[in-house]
């Protein structure tokens, strides 16, 4: 049975891109359920839901109280890439995956090519909910297909520029609005003894966010095959830009969230960070001594007056293949990610920044933040969220791509090779990884 299922999984992986009727392809698995039918189950239902979000139990309790006939049991684990994805894949292989699971956007494709996800487009409520979500987050869960929905967006990570307003002011440095100004400011900050930002060589999502903002597109899926282009115009432009900053020692390269990194921010060695909305929390927890001295500005643009933003992070709630309760599962996932009570609870317990347009105006996001000198920083992010390119798609083998890019970036920082060379290498190895997994690649 297992072998059979595996063969089917590979076959479906090949076909699923073509099979735009999506749901029908899933009918070949052994669960016996008709995935296409999104109908209520009879009797009481208990759903299994795996998530690593702190405090998720309390939010689910709210649901359980109001919905005695659809109970949700929460299971937990470490952050996705730190272990939970691995166990999702083993559970799928063993045929006992939970009904619902937390999956970050950049990992969704991997689950889909392994035929691990139900197509939620079978459920009317899900299709109708599209209008509630910020357009690009919906793009993240449709995975570039026209009638597939493989998760309900949960949170997003629109990017902006965090900076030490006190130090910028003291040194007469203006807040950069374009990348050109950013470099000029970086020179001035360096002259004053600091670094304007920290460039992440370990977490490639920051760089991907920059590429995303520049309208780059690393992966496209035309229904038959994947096109990989890590070095297209915008990617090269971004890589060259940061290469210059690195060559001239204008940015630091501490590994994020380490003690070193915290210290650099806490002691004022680094004056800014191009990061996502959740970065607000990283800074305030890592650099408590600098409270009140930070501000947030919109991300620097490639063209003066441009209005484009990148994204770093964010996740969705997906329904795993083999569930017997597709209808109930999507009902819960929609409540969790669209209802004001759930979004407020998620925001206060785990700083989840909602993916719905309505969610951006949660009361808890309207207040000034003390750490940022009372600035209403979430206004900046709400605006950024609307400016993210909706078409950016992640590939199905991101773990490998990240690892290769990261290796190359770390070398580039020490003067061996360049960022662009790292991308070129990762491009080649990504294509060979896709081919090795039997995923068709377009040339």
């Amino acid at each position, binding site marked *: 049975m*297992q072998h059979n299922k595996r063969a089917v999984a590979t076959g479906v992986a090949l076909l699923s891109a073509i099979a735009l009727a999506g749901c029908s392809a899933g009918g070949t698995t052994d669960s016996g359920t008709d995935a296409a039918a999104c109908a209520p189950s009879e009797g009481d239902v208990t759903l299994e839901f795996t998530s690593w979000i702190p405090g998720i139990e309390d939010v689910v309790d709210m649901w359980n109280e109001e919905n005695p006939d659809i109970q949700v049991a929460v299971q937990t684990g470490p952050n996705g890439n*730190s272990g939970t994805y691995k166990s999702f894949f083993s559970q799928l292989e063993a045929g*006992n995956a939970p009904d619902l699971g937390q999956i970050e956007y950049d990992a969704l494709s991997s689950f889909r090519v392994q035929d691990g996800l139900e197509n939620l487009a079978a459920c009317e409520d899900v299709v109708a909910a599209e209008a509630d979500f910020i357009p690009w987050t919906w793009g993240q869960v449709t995975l570039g297909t026209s009638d597939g929905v493989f998760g309900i967006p949960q949170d997003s990570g629109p990017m902006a520029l965090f900076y030490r307003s006190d130090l910028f002011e003291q040194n007469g440095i203006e807040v950069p609005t374009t990348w050109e100004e950013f470099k000029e400011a970086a020179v001035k900050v360096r002259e004053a003894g600091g670094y304007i930002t920290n460039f992440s060589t370990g977490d490639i999502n920051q760089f991907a966010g920059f590429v995303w903002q520049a309208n780059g597109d690393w992966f496209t899926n035309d229904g038959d095959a994947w096109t990989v282009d890590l070095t297209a115009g915008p990617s090269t432009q971004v890589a060259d830009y940061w290469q210059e900053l690195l060559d001239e020692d204008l940015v630091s390269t501490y590994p994020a969230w380490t003690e070193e990194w915290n210290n650099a921010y806490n002691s004022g060695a680094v004056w800014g960070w191009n990061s996502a909305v959740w970065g607000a929390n990283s800074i305030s927890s890592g650099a408590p001594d600098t409270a009140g001295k930070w501000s947030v500005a919109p991300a620097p643009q490639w063209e003066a007056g441009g209005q484009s933003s990148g994204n770093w992070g964010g996740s969705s709630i997906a329904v795993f293949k083999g569930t017997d309760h597709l209808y109930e599962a999507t009902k819960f996932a929609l409540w969790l990610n669209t209802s004001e009570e759930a979004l407020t609870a998620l925001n206060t317990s785990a700083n989840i920044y909602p993916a719905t347009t309505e969610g951006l105006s949660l009361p808890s996001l309207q207040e000034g933040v003390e750490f940022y000198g009372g600035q209403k920083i979430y206004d900046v992010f709400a605006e950024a969220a609307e400016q993210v390119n909706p078409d950016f798609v992640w590939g199905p083998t991101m773990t490998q791509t990240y690892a290769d890019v990261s290796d190359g970036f770390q070398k580039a920082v020490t003067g061996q090779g360049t960022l662009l060379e790292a991308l070129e290498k990762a491009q080649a190895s990504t294509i060979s990884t896709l081919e090795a997994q039997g995923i068709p690649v377009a040339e």
Partner: protein
Amino acid sequence: MSMLTRTRGATADDLAPARSRGARESIFSRGAALLVMGVFTLYFLVPIWWLFIASTKDRGDLLTTPALWFAEWNFFTNVGDLISYGDGIYFRWLLNSIGYAVVGALLATVFAGMCGYALAKYRFPGRELFFNVVLGGVLVPATALALPLFLLFSQVNLTNTYWAVLLPSIVSPFGVYLSRIYAASSVPDELIEAGRIDGAGEVRTFFTVSVRLMTPALVTVFLFQFVSIWNNFFLPLIMLRSAELFPITYGLYSWNTQLNQIPELRTYVLTGSFLSIVPLIVAFLLLQRFWRNGLGSGSVK
């Protein structure tokens, strides 16, 4: 094996004659040896010291005060916060770990002891083959087995239960190996013969006579297994989904991966890690006594 040679070496290295010859040893070589030992002791103790210091600080002091010396004493506040966070889940994890490690290590020791003893003292066809297979087992890393085990346990619906972690822990190929070598050299055939003549069954002879002679090896097996279960991480990662079943290592790890979202967790992880090594130290100190006694009685004979 290294453990065995080391313990045996310790008995042979009787202290009295060494001391009488001490005058002839050059002060230099002795000093050098002490220096090397001192450096390594520091090397091993500094991280623990750091952990202890870190667990006495609040989150702000952690970053801003010297890493190896005290700031404001917040240890008990930290412990209090740690214990109350998430409905006291930390305490539950600690109990789970103790449960997994004590029960698992005890059973593993009993089975390994019996198996090693049988291999050493009974002749039967296929004995060497069996032993070699067990030896091969020593070479297979536990992580490589986790996934196949998961698939097996899924078949019988035992994933995400206590059994999923406990059952694989009661197997110790290294323990079998050590028990066999030790039983062969420390349990004289004559004693077993005598037991048989006196009318004791094999099982009774084993439990009343042989086990005592094998104590040092068994304690070693227990300790090794205890530590490896305590530190086992990959198996729970693959098997467990419910937080109330987690052992302490896995629980702390899952907190650690959430630092971005919940910064308070940093102090909990540090304090939690510090507290989690206490049972290990206690186990070592308590068992070391048995270990030495066993060795002493062996050397007198």
